[in-house]
């Protein structure tokens, strides 16, 4: 439960200034962190535990989802020390199947909902979709905000929809996708983050993966600052999920360095940080095996999801 003491909702018409050049320089600085040896192995394993293994295609058949769920549970069977991923993320009509397969594995079932990726359904249908996904067995809901309303300055509309979906989630966790690639400015990213957080998001998430650019380090950093300010004000910890465009282990480690140096060690857990990605998991696995055995193996030795 969130501590609501001292949670005065800010005036979203006001803008928290963000300097574009400054935030991009700061984000670039994390890319110069050189992560080696034990600290690298630790971070690679941690990153793997934070992956939301995702498939969000119109062609997602039950067979494809089954394949993905098994990949989630057994990323690399040859080495039992290798951890499982955090969650599998699918469309609502694949939730029941995923939940069946993953039952008892400790892996969360996440579902996109609310007319993903555009959010252009009616409010009623979007609420229904959330309820449906939760009933089918999703314990995490990835919603999208109405970017049209946000860009039009209708911040209360966005606030209210997030709050409504949070209620519809019941016990499930709510991740709010801002679709930062459509928000144009860092200040908008900051504002959308604040709206989502104050309206009840458990996680804020950059992107659907359907729009380019998807997650970038500076955008993620602006969102981490919003999470930090909220924590400093209320003591409540909100999670962060960059999604889309993070394909290689090295980039993932730089994201973790950014989280560690911005929010501290408490956020280095799958409960508060996730990567929404599909191909990242195997690159992490390849690097983990390389780090442990000293040999870099061909992708053919790693199962695809």
């Amino acid at each position, binding site marked *: 439960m969130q501590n609501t003491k*001292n949670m*005065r909702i800010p005036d979203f018409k006001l803008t928290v*200034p*963000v*300097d574009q*050049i*400054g*935030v991009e*320089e*700061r984000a670039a600085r994390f890319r*110069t*962190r*050189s*992560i*080696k*040896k*034990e*600290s*690298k192995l*630790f*971070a690679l394993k*941690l990153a793997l535990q934070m992956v939301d293994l995702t498939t969000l295609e119109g062609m997602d058949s039950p067979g494809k989802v089954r394949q993905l769920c098994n990949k989630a549970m057994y990323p690399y069977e040859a080495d039992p020390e290798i951890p499982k991923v955090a969650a599998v993320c699918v469309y609502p009509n694949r939730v029941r199947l995923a939940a069946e397969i993953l039952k008892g594995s400790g892996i969360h079932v996440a579902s996109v909902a609310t007319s993903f990726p555009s959010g252009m359904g009616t409010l009623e249908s979007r609420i229904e979709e959330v309820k449906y996904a939760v009933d089918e067995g999703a314990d995490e809901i990835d919603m999208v905000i109405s970017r049209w309303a946000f860009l039009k300055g209708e911040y209360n509309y966005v606030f209210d929809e997030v709050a409504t979906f949070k209620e519809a989630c019941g016990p499930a966790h709510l991740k709010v996708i801002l679709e930062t690639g459509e928000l144009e400015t860092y200040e908008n990213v900051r504002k959308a983050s604040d709206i989502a957080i104050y309206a009840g998001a458990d996680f804020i998430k950059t992107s659907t993966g359907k729009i380019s650019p998807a997650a970038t380090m500076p955008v993620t950093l602006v969102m981490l*600052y919003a999470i*930090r300010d909220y*924590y*400093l*004000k209320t*003591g409540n910890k909100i999670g962060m999920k960059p999604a889309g465009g993070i394909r290689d282990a090295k980039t993932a480690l730089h994201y*973790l*360095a950014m989280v*560690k*140096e911005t*929010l*501290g*060690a*408490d956020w*280095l857990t799958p409960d508060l940080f996730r990567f929404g990605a599909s191909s990242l998991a195997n690159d992490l696995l390849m690097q983990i095996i390389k780090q442990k055995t000293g040999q870099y193996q061909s992708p053919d030795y790693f199962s695809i999801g």
Partner: protein
Amino acid sequence: MSEKELTTRQNLRFDELWAYDPAPESPDYVKIEEQYNLFIDGKFQEPASGRYFETINPANETLLSRVARAEKSDLDKAVAAARKAYEGVWSKMHAKERGKYIYRIARLLQERAREFAILESMDTGKPIRESRDVDIPIVIAHFFYYAGWADKLKYAFPGVDPRPLGVAGQIIPWNFPLLMAAWKIAPALATGNTVVIKPASSTPLTLLRLGELIRDAGVPAGVVNIVTGPGEIGSAIANHPDIDKIAFTGSTEIGRTIQEASLRTGKKYTLELGGKAANIVFDDAPVEEAVEGIVNGIFFNQGHVCCAGSRLLVQEGVADELVHKLKMRMETLIVGDPLDKNTDIGAINSKGQLDSILGYLTDGVESGLQIYQTKCQLPEKGFWCPPTLVENVSQAHRIVQEEVFGPVLTIQTFRTPEEAVSLANNTPYGLSGGIWTDKGSKIFKVGKGIRAGVIWANTFNKFDPTSPFGGYKESGMGREGGIHGLLPYLEISQ
């Protein structure tokens, strides 16, 4: 308790859950000779005295090399070589050819950037991240930039027939040894002057290596001469009758003696001296980026920066939040081995400088100042000072008035832009300043009010060869960099 006060009570945990393993650059990549001679007339020559002094690595106090101790007769030899090269070759050479040599120096530096970066970090104690990403790239940019001017001087100063002065005597400091050498050598050569240059005695190695590179580039003998030695050699340069121009970067105290000597001997001179810059944060500033700018302003190069933003002036409404966030940011700064790629803050350049910084802090403690230092662990050997804040100080305090030249930031608050400007100007210095606000008009209004050579807006410590640099008041005379940086090396006739 107000909302603002509550906000600043929460803290974050930057503990050791995931500490980065050491990722050091290899010192073996650079071969350092046991002994270095004076670079005079295109050759490395033994000093007349036969004596050498030691240069150490300030991060571990180990001996790096022994360097020739020049005396007056060596300097005379160097000046004579420079004069001969000026009259015989360099001033007669077609400007386009002169430019080619400078381009060649730039390109060779580019090829050997890693070597120069490692050596610079070993000799100065600055982190490899800075020598690799800041010092050396700007060194190269300076040579490229001024190489381009060599055959275009008539266009820089149309109709006034710009001509070289002759022999330039240059004295450089220990905080940016190679960078300050580049700032001085590049415009001197581009304008057709020859050079006698002296590095600081604690950091001579990269300049001597540049001497090797200049020789390997085939630059005519005597065009650049390097004399190493104690301060007396610097003052001998300032007083030398056959030197036409002095360029000095260093302390205001020595700058004064050089100014007197130059006036007495009728030399042209430029002085780049101390600073005590105000970094002004308004309550409408982008706070996170301002914190980053403050860190970059004062902890860059351990605060051994003449234009460092050593006085933080913060508007009262945002002071608590800003200082709280600054302290959190400081906890993530990694202090240690300069050659480690993750190091943010390296070693203090010398024992003497460390003692001077600690002197200010001890005085501060004795007079009851509120001093905050981060909890970082410092190596046992070498010279170290953790990032330091001095809070709740005022203009009356010595630590606010004098240049500490270390990782020490004083914090004062203000209420109105006018008050900020008057605090910023209330110093004998005037080298740089910073303004943080979301409002463009405020940048121009406040910026105009501050008497300093460089004002950065929503950034700090940004350098570019095209931009002139220099100070007001006790911060110096003349400008280096840009088209302005050519002028001190030229005779202009109407």
